């Protein structure tokens, strides 16, 4: 195994894991406020198709990323309306949102299947430009990749170091108590969903505009559900989400490594690793998980009379 091959594996692992980290962060923000979004898959798809088509039409990948983020936020607003304002069941609303995303993304992207775009520009890692060209060409990443760690830190700072984050987490634990202390649980949940949706949109944008650079129906292939699993794995903590996304990337890298060294292991079995590992971790935690999960997660806030 040469250093070059190792770098190649690492680089592709980073590319495939980025969208997942943004998505996980987005779901963490929503779940911290007490709203679980099972329709993540649908949000990702709509953002990915919108971002891709805008990039194709305008030729500007950055505009594409921005639209994808707004699309993600808007999709989450539908969930907000159903689950917060109309007090509908969150799981059912999320699944309905997923089917909505399947359909809407197919409709938005229908004319762009197979279209070619100029993806997000890739910038050589600072300090790597002195290396031989073959190495440097593997160390070229786009802006969204460089921003992953800052984004995770920013979400952590927002949630744990600002008054807004305190209110958000308070709503996630007990909306009634938060209401009693002068906060508006509904408004905060909408805000959390909007911010979360923007992050999910950024993840989707990376998938379609930077990584795959094309649009196909159902291109997310279960990433939304991986993200939901990673949220639990990360114990609803943004910084631990980095570890979760790395884990997923490592599984991808491992798979590529095995393939490049000629060992035949089914990629399908390797793909189950993140899920099975999350399951094992959950079992290892036993019943103590309750400490980590926002207490009001999934519950309907009936409002205070």
């Amino acid at each position, binding site marked *: 195994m040469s250093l070059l091959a190792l770098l190649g594996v690492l680089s592709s692992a980073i590319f495939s894991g980025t969208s997942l980290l943004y998505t996980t962060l987005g779901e963490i923000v929503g779940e911290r406020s007490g709203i679980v979004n099972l329709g993540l898959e649908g949000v990702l798809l709509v953002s990915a198709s919108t971002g891709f088509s805008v990039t194709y039409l305008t030729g500007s990948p950055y505009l594409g990323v921005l639209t994808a983020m707004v699309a993600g936020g808007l999709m989450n607003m539908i969930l907000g309306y159903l689950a917060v304002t*109309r007090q509908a069941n969150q799981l059912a609303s999320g699944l309905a949102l997923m089917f909505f995303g399947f359909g809407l*993304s197919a409709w938005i992207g229908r004319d762009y299947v197979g279209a070619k775009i100029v993806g997000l520009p890739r910038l050589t890692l600072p300090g790597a430009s002195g290396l031989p060209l073959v190495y440097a060409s593997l160390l070229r990443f786009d802006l969204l990749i460089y921003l992953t760690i800052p984004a995770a830190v920013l979400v952590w700072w927002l949630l744990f170091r600002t008054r807004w984050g305190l209110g958000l987490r308070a709503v996630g634990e007990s909306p009634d108590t938060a209401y009693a202390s002068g906060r508006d649980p509904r408004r905060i949940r909408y805000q959390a969903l909007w911010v979360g949706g923007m992050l999910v949109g950024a993840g989707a944008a990376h998938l379609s505009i930077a990584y795959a650079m094309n649009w196909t129906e159902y291109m997310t292939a279960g990433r939304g559900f991986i993200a939901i*699993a990673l949220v639990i794995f990360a114990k609803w903590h943004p910084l631990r989400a980095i570890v979760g996304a790395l884990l997923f990337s490592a599984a991808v890298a491992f798979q590529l490594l095995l393939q490049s060294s000629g060992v035949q292991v089914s990629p399908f079995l390797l793909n189950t690793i993140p899920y099975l590992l999350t399951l094992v971790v959950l079992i290892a935690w036993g019943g103590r998980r309750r400490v980590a999960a926002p207490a009001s997660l*999934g519950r309907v806030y009936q409002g205070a009379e």
Partner: protein
Amino acid sequence: MWTAILRTALRYAAMAMLAFLLFGFILLISGKDPIQSYRDIFVSTLGSAYGFSEVIVAMTPLLLTALAVALPSRLGLINVGGEGQLYMGACLATWAALTFGALPPWLVLPIMVVLGMLGGAVWAWIPGQLRARGIVNETITTLLLNAVAPMIVSFFIFGYWHSPMDTNKTSIFSSSARLPTLFHTRVDLSLFLGLALLGLFWFIMRYTRWGLEMRAIGGNPQAARLNGIPTRGYVVVVMCLAGAVAGLAGMAQVSGYYGVLLANFSRGLGYMGFLISWLAGGSPLGIVVTSFVVAIILTGGNLLQLTRDLPYSMINILLAMTLFVVLARPSLSRRRKAT
């Protein structure tokens, strides 16, 4: 009484109208005539015997996956895992079809049914055990296992079972491993299995001791336990039964509908079952009616694709909008909790 029913019917009709209006708007933007599209959808599904039979075909797996959610919901369990259980059922049933395909149908089909149900049951047994022991709640585990099951199916297909010509599906099952179809349509025997199981579910919940005890656990688990009802045992057994029903749906899909096992053949049948059961409040009759309505919409999607050159998935928008307006319905949302 009758005015109340009439009012409910009117309300649902108005909600359906709203969904159709919204989707019609999208059709209009796509440059299609919405009224003509809707007419086509209804004429093609309900206007002919063939169209009607196709609706029934689409409805069949939904009956089973919805039952797989409704049954545990009586205990207050949330089984989101119908999708994975369905895949595991299809997986084991396919193994039986490929291994015993040469045997006569009266021998192969029962083996496939039993193995299909076993596959689903095992997949639901894990969350059932974890929940009964108070380790992890079943919503999360069923969701995680959902993602694993299709990969296991793909592993077997791509690695061992694929036909000489394809990589992503098995050879067509031998005729003895196919569920018999009825009246020269694609409606197969699993329709009656689904209806019979729903009937059985209704009977058990209403007239047996098991039903009473399950309702007791669903109402107040602590009180049920103090009254000597084995709640843990119920949780595990009911989850396994639900998994078995979903597994049966998977078996019926590969043996009846497709006749082959295709990688990723179900895109959301299990989740659809969850939504249907939830909309129907877990009532058997409600499940039949809701599945029928959903099946009309899904079958209509084929028509959009054929005559309006729109992607088939677009029909999911109409489906989702119908769900949205029902989910957003006033006051009814707090009507009953897992009765």
